[in-house]
Every structure is written in C-alpha cells, then in structure tokens.
C-alpha cells in the first residue's frame, strides 16, 4: 500500500518543558536501525514516539517536526492508517474486538486491501514464537492474555501492516520473549524504536535516545563499546529467564541455575 520506499525518517528538534531547544540537530532513522528511548517516567518517552506516529509538524506540545525522505510526508501517511509507514504497539494489551483470532486478522487483511488466506496462519505462527502460551486461530481475541495479545499485535504489524517502522512502547511489560521479537524484527529489516526500561533491550539497540524534562538530552551510539555490558546482561537475563520458566512450571529451585552463556 506504500508507493514510495521509505529510506529515511528525520526528526527535527523541538523544545523541552522550559522552552530550551533539544540537544540534537537531526535524528535519522533508516530501515534496519534499532533505537531505544530511555529516561525516567514522565521524561517524555511516549510523547517522542507519538510525535513520530502522527508525523508531528511543529503542532504538538514538543514542537518537533518529522520528515520522510527529507520532506514533509504526504497527508495520506498521517491520515490513512492503511497507508501509514509506521505501526505503534502501545502498552495497551487489550483487544476490544470480540472476534476470533482468524476473523480479526482476516478483517485486518481485507481493510489493507489484499487477501492471502495463508497470511493468517503465518501471523499466528510468528506470534507464537514470541509467547509462551500458544494462540490458536479459533479462540476469541477478547480471551487472549496480555502477552498473547501483544505478541499477536507485533506479528500483525510485521506481516499484515508490514510497515517499515515499528514503535514499541514497553515491549518487556507483557512477558513476551523480547530478544526473539528484536531478532525477528531485524530479520524483516524494520526500523525499530523501543520505549523501554529494560537494560537488555536498551543495550541491544544500536542507539540510545536519553530523555529528560520532555526533551532529548543525549543520543548515545555505543558502536561496540558496550560489548562487555551486553555479555554480562545476557548472562543475568539468562538466569532470570530460566528461573522464571522454572517457577512458572511449578518447580522448586534448590540449586544455582545453569546458564549456557
């Protein structure tokens, strides 16, 4: 549905809550990039991705402007969700639509103007790589758990919306396999922006945007300098993940957990 190839999204700076200009000249996002947005609660992380989602044109509280391929995006990108090159997965993990999973996905496919029946099962299969509790085609959307809904929405954004840019607001919250999500999104050559409090998700991103007082205060590009921290974090995350699975499975943990890292 997107005629033009998205090569670059440019974020032009706005102002913080005191009216001072943000600490960057331009932020460029290209397909395959991963960025995490970090900072304390209330620092403006969600507002940052919302600006991208609605292609702010100096008309939001932050005063930022978003360009696509170096120019103002056509109105369709902003107004027609089916033409929009951006998908936002919010923290909301409830689906209000009381349809079966397959009917819901079919309806979404139709609204995007194409119908490939196999795409429905592919989307469910992909979602099942992100969640511990498998989703089946005939269950109702409203009876899915938070993690299942989030997993399905991520899979839907990749395969059905198929947008080049995906914004994820606190992906770690719903208890889904976040490394798997990052890996799959990279495979599909999507540009990814995570709003996150998770150290591992932050460290695995190519760039970190640090928010403070409603504005970007720093853009960090570690470029390999954090290798050691990443290894340490993966190790810890491995232990936490393993213990979580054991606890979920009803086991008694009497020994240090072995990890393969």
């Amino acid at each position, binding site marked *: 549905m997107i005629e033009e190839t998205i090569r670059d999204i440019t974020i032009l700076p706005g102002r913080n809550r005191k009216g001072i200009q943000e600490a960057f000249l331009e932020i460029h996002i290209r397909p395959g990039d991963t960025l995490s947005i970090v900072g304390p609660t209330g620092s403006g992380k969600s507002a940052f991705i919302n600006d991208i989602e*609605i292609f702010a044109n100096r008309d939001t509280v932050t005063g930022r402007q978003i360009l696509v391929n170096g120019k103002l995006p056509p109105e369709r990108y902003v*107004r027609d969700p089916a033409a929009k090159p951006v998908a936002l*997965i919010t923290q909301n993990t409830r*689906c*209000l639509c009381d349809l079966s999973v397959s009917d819901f996905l079919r309806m979404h496919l139709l609204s995007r103007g194409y119908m490939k029946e196999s795409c429905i099962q592919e989307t469910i299969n992909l979602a099942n790589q992100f969640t511990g509790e498998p989703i089946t085609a005939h269950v109702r959307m409203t009876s899915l758990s938070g993690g299942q809904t989030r997993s399905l929405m991520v899979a839907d954004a990749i395969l059905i*919306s198929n947008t080049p840019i995906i914004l994820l607001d606190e992906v770690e919250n719903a208890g889904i396999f976040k490394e798997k999500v990052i890996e799959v999104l990279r495979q599909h050559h999507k540009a990814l922006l995570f709003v996150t409090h998770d150290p591992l998700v932050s460290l695995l991103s190519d760039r970190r945007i640090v928010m403070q007082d409603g504005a970007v205060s720093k853009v960090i590009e570690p470029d390999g300098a954090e290798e050691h921290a990443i290894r340490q974090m993966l190790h810890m995350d491995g232990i936490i993940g393993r213990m979580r699975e054991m606890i979920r499975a009803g086991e008694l943990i009497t020994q240090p957990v072995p990890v393969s890292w």
Partner: protein
Amino acid sequence: MKLVIIAGPPSAGKTAVTRQIIRIHPELKSAYLKIDVVCATEDEEIRNEFHIPAKKVYSGDLCPDHAGIMILDEAIEWAMTEGADMLIVESAGLCLRCTPYTTQSFGIVVLSAISGIQSPAKMAPMIALADIAVVTRIDLVSQAEKEVFREKIRGIRGDIDIVETNAVQGTGMRYLTRAIGEAPDIENPATITLRGIPPLGVCTVCIGKTNIGWKHHTGVLRQLDGDALMFRGD
C-alpha cells in the same frame, strides 16, 4: 456565522470534540447549544470553561432530534444576536436513525473507536449525510482495530473525511480545524433545510401513552409481521 452540527451516540465524546473545536478556533466567537432529553450539564460546563453563550434544550416527550429541528431557526437567531461567528449544536444522539444535519451547515458525526466493530453500520444514516467522521478514543485501540474501524466507516460512505483523535488530548484535530475553517458561513437562514428525511415518529407513544400493542395506539403504527407501516386515526 458558521453552523456546526455534531451528532453521534451518547458518550461517544461529542462534548470533548466540541471543547477542542472551541479551543482551537480562538479567532471565532462560538455559541453552543446542547439538545438532550432529561439531563444535560454540558451547557454550564462549556459556559464556565470558555465564557461563551451556551444554552440547553430538553426535548422531554418529543424525539430529541425532532426537537432540535423545531428550534434550530430560533437558535440561529439567538446566536446571531449574541454576535457569534460559529454556532455549535450538539445533538442528544439517541435513535441513530435521524440525521440532524442541514444545508448550509458543517455536519460532524462522532464515533467512539471502542464502541464495537459493527457500530458504524448501526448508525449508517448519521454517517452517510455528515461532512466528516471524528473517531474518538483512538488511543485505546490497536493499529489493526483502527484500520478495521476506518474501513467499516468507509463501507457506509466511501468518500467521507475521517479524523482520528484522542479528543481529551486533542491529537489529530488539525484536520478537523482545517475543515471547519473552510466550511462556508450560513447564506440565508430562511432557506436552510434538512439534508435527509427523518423517520416517521408520529404515534401515541411519542406523546406519552404507555400501553403496549399497536391496537391501543393511533398514528403511524406497525405489526410484528411485515415491515409495512400503517396509519390509524384521523
């Protein structure tokens, strides 16, 4: 003076949309009229918040959309006397069958994104004759639900302008602002007519008779079998 008519089911966010319209059009002096059935406090809220002329009309035993039609000419006169540049009329939003929009006005239908995927079809007449559909509570649904809801509205009328918003925050309102800005003023109040024909509602239930069964009523009636309407009485 511009005439803006806002319709939509109860609790869809009509008043939140009204507030945004008043807020983002400081260059236009607004007047506000709320039509409701038994209780409305919106006129007081709007008056206190924006210090603009605001009024309410209770329709009582009359269908609220019919009541709105009856008093619209006098309301335009009132707003003009108040020196308003824009009169915003907010309907009660009940039967979903009436379309309160008129000629020489800008018609807005307000729908809530969380009202269910079939709701656009249920209020088809309200959508079909509007100039713009404003979908509220968009922050509460997923991308996929947003797209599906939009298609459902387009299924009623393919060329309708759609604005998606979190009306409390005011996101996405820039396109509504523009459309209202471009809407023409009333040319001649005497020639304003309804865009659609409201349904017949003239039976003795309308005036407060409580018996059930068509045999107890006069006026325009119907029976269980068959869709045909019949008339009983003088």
